[in-house]
């Protein structure tokens, strides 16, 4: 079984995306044999009031009727905007299973007081908190996109930027999505990242050679993710399927395909 923990429906304002609806995603899932996907509304990243994107996602899910059982909805919450607590409550009632946070796009730091409160609340409610390290490669950015550009003073974000939040609420359950810009963190944070309640998806550029990461972190720490429709649908899958027998057992591969995700969901 395959569960994609990192997919989207919705728009990216700087580029035409393709099959960027739940129907389009279903086509890809059927083409490549993926059973379920965790989805959020990509449009929310460029909304101030992200709740309207969460409600749109719900409408889209309803429109699919039975097929919507293949999707696990995640809400985008902006703790830097009024009434985020109400938004979270509404999303809980609507059946969202987790939230995704985008401090880079919503103009706050992960260690922001409201963000910490939000994650604490998610922990109480049993919601997964997904942190996306990078959305797109900044080198090809539009002039309207955020000014975090690789190789400049205001560089792209990396895992280190999210550690203050993870340290503040270490026992929340986290997905770390689209790992980019390296694995370097402070020594004391390495052990924290190895804890059972943090899962990395396989879409990111910093998953350069999977066998090495499995030796360092273990197969229980990774889950299939695509970052679709931003990134191609297959690379995240290849990182698992190309593992050889001496690098991962079939059981370990199955954990990465879906077992680890199910542990969280």
């Amino acid at each position, binding site marked *: 079984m395959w569960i994609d923990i990192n997919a989207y429906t919705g728009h990216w304002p700087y*580029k*035409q*995306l*393709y099959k960027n609806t739940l129907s389009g995603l279903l086509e890809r899932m059927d083409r490549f044999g993926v059973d379920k996907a965790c989805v959020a509304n990509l449009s929310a990243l460029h909304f101030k009031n992200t709740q309207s994107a969460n409600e749109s996602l719900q409408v889209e899910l309803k429109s699919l009727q039975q097929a919507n059982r293949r999707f696990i909805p995640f809400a985008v919450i902006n703790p830097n905007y009024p009434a985020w607590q109400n938004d979270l409550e509404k999303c809980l009632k609507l059946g969202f299973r987790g939230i995704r946070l985008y401090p880079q796009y919503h103009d706050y730091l992960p260690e922001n007081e409201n963000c910490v409160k939000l994650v604490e609340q998610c922990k109480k409610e049993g919601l997964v908190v997904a942190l996306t390290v990078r959305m*797109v*490669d900044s*080198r*090809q*950015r539009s*002039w309207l996109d955020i000014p975090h*550009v*690789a*190789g*400049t003073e205001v560089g792209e974000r990396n895992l280190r930027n999210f550690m203050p939040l993870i340290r503040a609420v270490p026992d929340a359950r986290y997905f770390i999505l689209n790992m980019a810009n390296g694995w370097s963190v402070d020594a004391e944070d390495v052990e924290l990242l190895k804890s059972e309640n943090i899962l990395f998806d396989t879409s990111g*550029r910093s*998953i*350069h*050679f*999977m066998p090495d990461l499995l030796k360092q972190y273990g197969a229980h720490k990774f889950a299939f993710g695509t970052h*679709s*429709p*931003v*990134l*191609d*649908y*297959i*690379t*995240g*899958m*290849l*990182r698992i*399927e*190309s593992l*050889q027998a001496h690098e991962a057992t079939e059981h370990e591969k199955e954990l990465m395909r879906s077992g680890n995700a199910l542990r969280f969901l």
Partner: protein
Amino acid sequence: MKEVFRFKKLDAYTTSVFTPASIALHLDYADRFGVSKMFVANPMTQIKLTPDEFREHNNKVIAAVKQHPDRFVGQFTVNPMYRRESLDEIDRCLDAGMMGTRLYQQVKINDPVYAPILEKLASLNILIFMHGECQMGVGGYKMKYDVKKVPTISTPNDFVDVAQRYPEAMFQFAHIGGGSDWECMCKTFEPYPNIYVDTGGSNNEEYMIDFALKHLGEDRLLFGSDNSLYQSIGKIFASELTDSQKEKLFYKNYKRILNKGGFHVD
């Protein structure tokens, strides 16, 4: 993985520092994904690239190919600021069995100082492969957003300039997946049939390959990795390319171009 192995592959853009560990990783990648030959050279660096330096670079490549002649094919670098030495180096490297160039950013491709190099390579029907970027604030492109890279990086418009000046030459713009704006690259190159691209690089945005096919056609796309092991393969299998188009991209296009220069690979 069966699907991946159905297609024979030539990696037109492998980059190596030629340590034992890096060579081992290249060989692993080739075995893991069914790449029959890797066209290899040193990574781009900010050095001046004096004749001693480019000879040293090329010697490393020659040595690696000697060690693994069934896996690697060498590409050479030169610096046109050193005209005589560069022209001699082309001969030396071709005699040593190398099959193409790996030019960097010391000088823009359309700088007049490149003329003798380009003319020699064109006369030999050798694909002129150079690093290029299409990022705001790089190489003269939208410099309002200057990201402080060296000003001599070649941009798509620089390639268009030389492609028009040398219509008989063949140019390869490196890695549409190298992080830069691939839509910009493909749209710029569309009218110039003597500009090819390789699909290498760490950026594996959805639709990149389909877009390249739409704007450049199925005969101008070359497979490359630039050491991005998974992305280089994944983005192609995620695309809507037919089997025949994949065959061209992975193997036939590059083989055809190499044959023009008298180079034969299996």
